[in-house]
C-alpha cells in the first residue's frame, strides 16, 4: 500500500509558501505588501519564497507601477492551483486514513 505522505508536495512543506498559496487561490491578484501583512513575514523572507513558487510555475508575477512606486502583484497559475488542490486532497486522505 502506498503511504499517502509520499503524495505531499515538498514545495508546500514551508509554512510561508503554503500561506501564499492559500491566499492566492481565493483572491484573484494580491500585491506584495498585502501578502506581507497577512503572513507577518519580512520582505526578504517573503521574496525568497515567492521566487521559489514562481520557479516551480505555481504563481505568475505582474510587475506594475502605482505612480512611481513599483506595485508587484501575484496570481496563482493553473499548475499552482492543481498542485495546491492535490496537496489538500492528500491531507484529506491522511485524516480519513488514520481515522
Amino acid at each position, binding site marked *: 500500500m502506498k503511504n499517502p505522505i509520499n503524495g505531499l508536495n515538498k514545495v508546500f512543506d514551508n509554512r510561508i509558501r503554503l500561506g501564499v498559496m492559500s491566499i492566492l487561490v*481565493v483572491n*484573484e491578484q494580491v500585491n506584495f505588501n498585502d501578502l506581507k501583512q497577512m503572513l507577518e513575514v519580512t520582505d526578504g523572507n517573503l521574496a525568497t519564497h515567492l521566487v521559489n513558487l514562481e520557479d516551480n510555475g505555481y504563481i505568475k508575477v505582474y510587475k506594475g507601477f502605482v505612480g512611481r512606486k513599483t506595485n508587484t502583484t501575484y496570481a496563482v497559475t493553473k499548475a499552482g492551483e492543481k498542485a495546491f488542490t492535490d496537496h*489538500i486532497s492528500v491531507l484529506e486522505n491522511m*485524516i480519513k486514513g488514520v*481515522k
Partner: protein
Amino acid sequence: MTTKRAFTLYFKVLFMSEQNQHGNAATSSRRTETLQEISDIKRIMERSSRFISLSGLSGIAAGLCALVGAYIANNILKDYYIKLDRGAAETYESFTVLEVKLVTLGAIVLLAALIFAFVFTWRRARQNHLPVWDLAARKLLWNVLFPLIAGGLFVLAMLQYDEWHFVAPACLAFYGLALVNGSKYTLSDVRYLGYSEILLGLVSTQFIHAGLYFWAIGFGVLHIIYGAIMWWKYERGAGSQ
C-alpha cells in the same frame, strides 16, 4: 481565475476543519500536525478573503443614529405641514428650504453612523489583533461603495426633478443591493440584511406616503436587529478576554 473552484476548495477546507472538532481525541502526532496545517490554511483563506472584524455594535450604533435622524426629520416635516395648513409656507422657496434641511440632516446622520460604525469595528479588530485596513477590508469597502454611490446619485437626480416619492424605496433598495454585493467579502449575515433591505424597499413603493417610516425601519430597526444578532453570534463574551 476559476473563482468557483477556489471557493469549492475553500468550503472543503472549512468542512475538513469541522470534522476535526468532531474527531476522536486519540490522535497520532502526524494527524494533529495535518489538522494544524489545515486549520492554518483555513484561517489564512478566511482572513484574506473576508473582513471578519465587522462589529455588531457598529450596526446597532448606525441603527440608533438612523432612528434619531428619522425622529428629527419627522419633526421638520410636521413643522412644514403645520405652516402649510396656515397657508404661510405655500411657496416654492419654502419647499426648497425643506429639501435642503432634509438632505443636510441625511448627510449628518450618514456621517455619524459611519463614524460610530468605524469606531466599533476598529475596536473589535484591535481586540483580535487584526489589521483594520487590509486586502479584505479594501474589497469590502469598494464592493459596498460602488452601488451605494450609484444609489446616492440616483436619489439626488430624483430630487433634482422634485421626484421625492421614491426617495425612501430607492435608498433602501440600493443600500440592500450594496450589502448583498459586499457580503461576499464579510460575515454572511450581511447578505440577509441586504435581502431584507431590498424587500422592504420594494414593499415601501406601495406605501409611498409612509416613506419615512420605512426608512426608519430599514436603516434603524433592521440595523439594530442584525447588529444585535451579529454581536450575539460572534462577540458575546469575547470582550471580557
